[in-house]
Structures are given as C-alpha cells and as structure tokens.
C-alpha cells in the first residue's frame, strides 16, 4: 500500500452487457460466501463438532428443507415488523433531526434525552411496552423503529449540518427561508450521511423485530429462534438466523441500490 502510483486510472468502461456486469459485481461476494461455507463445513468435519454445538452447512441446508414451510410462515411477520419499523424509526429520526438542526435549543435539550432513551435496553422496556401496547404487531414495530432510530438521528443531524458556508451564504443572499434551505440544500448534502444511516438501519430493524418478538410472540423468526434455542434444535436455529440475516442483506442491498440511483452528482470541490 505504501508504494506510489497505485491509484487506479479512470479508464472509460467498455460497454459490457449489464447482466455480465452485475455478475462480476457480485462475484467476490458469492466467492466469499462460498469460501466461508466451505471453511465452516471443513471445520465441522475435521474437528467432528457435534451438531448441537454448531451444525454444518449441510445440516443447516437440511434444516432449511425440512422447515421450509415453518420458515416461510415465520418470515412474513418479521419482515413486516422490520419494514414498518424501518420506515417509522427513520421517519421519526429524520423529522427530529430536522427539528434539531433548525432549533439548537431543542437539540441541546433533547439530544441527551435521545441518547438516554437509546441506551435503555429494549428488554428492560419490554414489560412497559407490553402493558401499553399489548401483544400484537404494534409493540414489535415500535421496538424495531426504536432500534433503528438513533443511528439515523445522529447521522442525519450531522448530515444536515454538512453544508458549506459558501452555499449558506448563497441561500442567505437569495433570502431563502430555513425551509427552502432545508429542502434545496441540506437534504441533498445530507444524503451521504442519510444513506449510511439507512444502511445501518436496514440491518438493525431486523434485529429489532427479532428482539421484539422475544417479548412475547407465537410467530416470527424471533419466536422461532427462542423456540429453537431452548429446544436444542440447532439446525433450525441456524436456518432461522440465516433467514433473518438474508432479510437484512436484502434490505441493505435495496438501500445501496437506492443510494446509487439518487446520488449521481460529484462534488466539484474539497468538502
């Protein structure tokens, strides 16, 4: 890395078929996944790890097959909770960030409280949430939302402030209202921060939905994880965890895709 002149030259890309492009793009990821699976299978075989400690990929695949129906059935509620929590949590975080950026007293007053609330373990909150919202979808969505909320708040506050003084001068001279500055400038320049936050949230909302199901649910991947854990159904446990992780990877990929579509400009100066 210490050698000079390794900066890749921006060569004009020959027009390849998009499909091929995409395949090459995913290639390393697929290779890495395949490699890890092989390694894992190898370790399990070599050390003769018993299945209840860590099942082999093959055993997990078997569990996927045996429990396809169960997994499918439990996937949907978790997906729903995660997706709605994602929307709700990020929306609230963005709105709060907008408020904080326009009102520094509000920021100073409520940011510490947001930090505080964020640290209260969900599980400690659970009994109260159950008391207030009962046992349906509502508390799960709230928990999933709560858990994505904070990173987005922090990033978005930072992002909305990441406007260059020169641009603010321009908007002042145009006598733009705070609302216009927000809409025409801050929002755009916060996008890199926002998308970083949404990427984080895309995985934490899944965690949130799962954790939320632990406060009492008969269905969903979280419930299945508890069931599998306490009944020593290791392959099912792993299959479930994988399903949840895949959900997160897909949501992450969707956010990355949206980012690539939305941020097409390049900054022309040092930021």
């Amino acid at each position, binding site marked *: 890395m210490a050698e000079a002149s390794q900066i890749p030259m921006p060569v004009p890309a020959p027009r390849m078929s998009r499909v091929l492009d995409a395949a090459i793009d995913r290639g390393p990821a697929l290779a890495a996944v395949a490699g890890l699976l092989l390694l894992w299978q190898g370790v399990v075989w070599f050390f003769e790890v018993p299945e209840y400690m860590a099942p082999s990929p093959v055993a997990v695949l078997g569990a996927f097959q045996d429990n396809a129906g169960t997994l499918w059935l439990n996937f949907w509620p978790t997906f729903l909770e995660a997706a709605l929590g994602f929307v709700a949590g990020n929306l609230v975080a963005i709105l709060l960030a907008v408020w904080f950026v326009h009102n520094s007293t509000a920021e100073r007053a409520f940011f510490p409280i947001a930090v505080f609330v964020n640290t209260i373990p969900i599980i400690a909150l659970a009994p109260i949430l159950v008391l207030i919202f009962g046992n349906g979808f509502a508390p799960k969505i709230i928990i999933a939302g709560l858990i994505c909320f904070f990173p987005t708040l922090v990033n978005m506050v930072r992002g909305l402030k990441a406007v260059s003084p020169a*641009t603010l001068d321009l908007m*002042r001279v*145009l006598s733009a209202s705070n609302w216009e500055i927000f809409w025409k400038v801050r929002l755009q320049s916060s996008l890199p921060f926002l998308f970083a936050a949404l990427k984080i949230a895309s995985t934490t909302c899944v965690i949130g939905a799962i954790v939320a199901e632990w406060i009492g649910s008969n269905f969903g991947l979280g419930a299945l994880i508890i069931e599998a854990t306490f009944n020593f159904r290791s392959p099912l446990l792993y299959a479930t965890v994988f399903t949840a992780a895949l959900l997160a990877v897909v949501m992450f990929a969707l956010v990355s895709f949206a980012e690539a579509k939305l941020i097409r400009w*390049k900054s022309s100066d040092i930021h």
Partner: protein
Amino acid sequence: MEQHTAAGNPAATPDPGAIRVDHLDVTFAEGTVVALKDVSVEIPQGAFVTILGPSGCGKSTLMRAIADLVPAARGAIDVQGQSPRDARADRNFSYVFQDATLLPWRTALENVQLPLEVGGGGDAHADPRDLLELVGLKGRENALPYELSGGMRQRVAIARALVTKPKILLMDEPFGALDEITRDKLNEEVLRIWRETGTTILFVTHSIPEAAFLGQYVLMLAAHPGRVKEFMKVELPPERRLADRDTLEFVQITAHLRKLLEEC
C-alpha cells in the same frame, strides 16, 4: 476620515436610494484580523462602481458586509434606507461570488433557476435559458457542474445572478476565469443591462482596464488594514464602446489607477 461621496461633495444630502457605508470596521478571528478599517463610502442610486485593490485588501469583505453576510464590528451600512438585513430579506441583492458556488447536484439550468424557487421567487425575472445563451452556454443546460470548465461554471453563476433582475448587483470578480473575448462580450452585456435597468452594480475586478471601462466610479481599496484609498468618478462618456479603450483619456485613467494601486 472624511466621507467619500459620489460627486466628491461631502455636504450633499444622501440620496435615499444609495448604499451608504459609514465608518465601517470588519474584523475576524475575534478582532485579531482587521479586514476593513473605518470605511466610509456612499454609492448613488443606479451607479456602476468597480472596486479595485490588492489581493486580500477586503474587497470581498466589503461586499459581504453590504450583503449582510458578515457583521460590522463598528459603523453602519444603509442600503436603500434599510439595514442590510432588511435589504437582503427583501431580495434587493444578487451576488456573484468569487467562487462560482453552484449546487453540485443541479444542472446548469437548474442552478440558474434556483433564485426563482426560493425566497419568494421575485416578480420580474428573466428566462433562464435565454441567460444561459447570453453567457454562451446554449446546449450545456443539462450539464452538471463537475462536467463544466471553470469558466463555464462562473458563467452559470453570472446567469443565476441576473435571473431575478435585482436592484443591486454585487459581482465579485465575475469574469476572472474568462478569456478576453468572452469577457469583452459580457462586459458589454453588463453595461447594457445596467443602462437598461438602472441596477446599482458593485463590481470587483483585478483588471484595471475593466475597472475603468465599466465603472462610473472606481473604488480603490488599500490593504493593511483594508481602507478606502480613493473613490473617484470615471470621467468618460456613459455610453462606452470597447473601442473607447484605445482613447487617450482612457489610457490616462488606467495609468492613474495603476499608479494608485502600486501605492497601496
């Protein structure tokens, strides 16, 4: 320090439409950097004032103070009978910044349209496409800033400043990045706009001929600290053509300005 008035007549009652700068100090870094010291100047309604001065003498700072972008440490500024803040809120200014300051996610055309979308939009306004054509960017309306050359970006910023037909136009080295031909063309355009609209124009430049050719008045600032060196009327006919630059009067004026600048 005496008041530098337009006609060199300190007793004249201030024109209600003028920009009046009164014993202005501007400091930075908690008072340790004095950018402007005791600057007083009175700019008549509808005047075209060019500002000359060595690099770092406070030209941009003076314009920024007038536009309410930088606070006065001492002294007062009066813009058409209002405080700079109110004048700004009323959208009396357009400002061409020294850096083009385009929004990188907007195309050339969208950047020119920005003033129409914010701050109430303004009543009278020019057609953004016409303005882009005026500055020679027809056909590049949809280019993003990073796809434009330095001079092109500056021209977009000029078009943006003209789109609202402002009462006061503050131009900070607008033509610095342009070749002489384009520059000459735009010089004439600016003069035409000034004559036709009665806009008050403050125009920072580093080119002495440009200052003399464009300015009805030249404001010369000196450095360390930034202060008024001279505020002089350019004794040339108001209707100027590029060829006038080869006249003896013109050369005399530029020679005088060059001498002054050397003293700064």
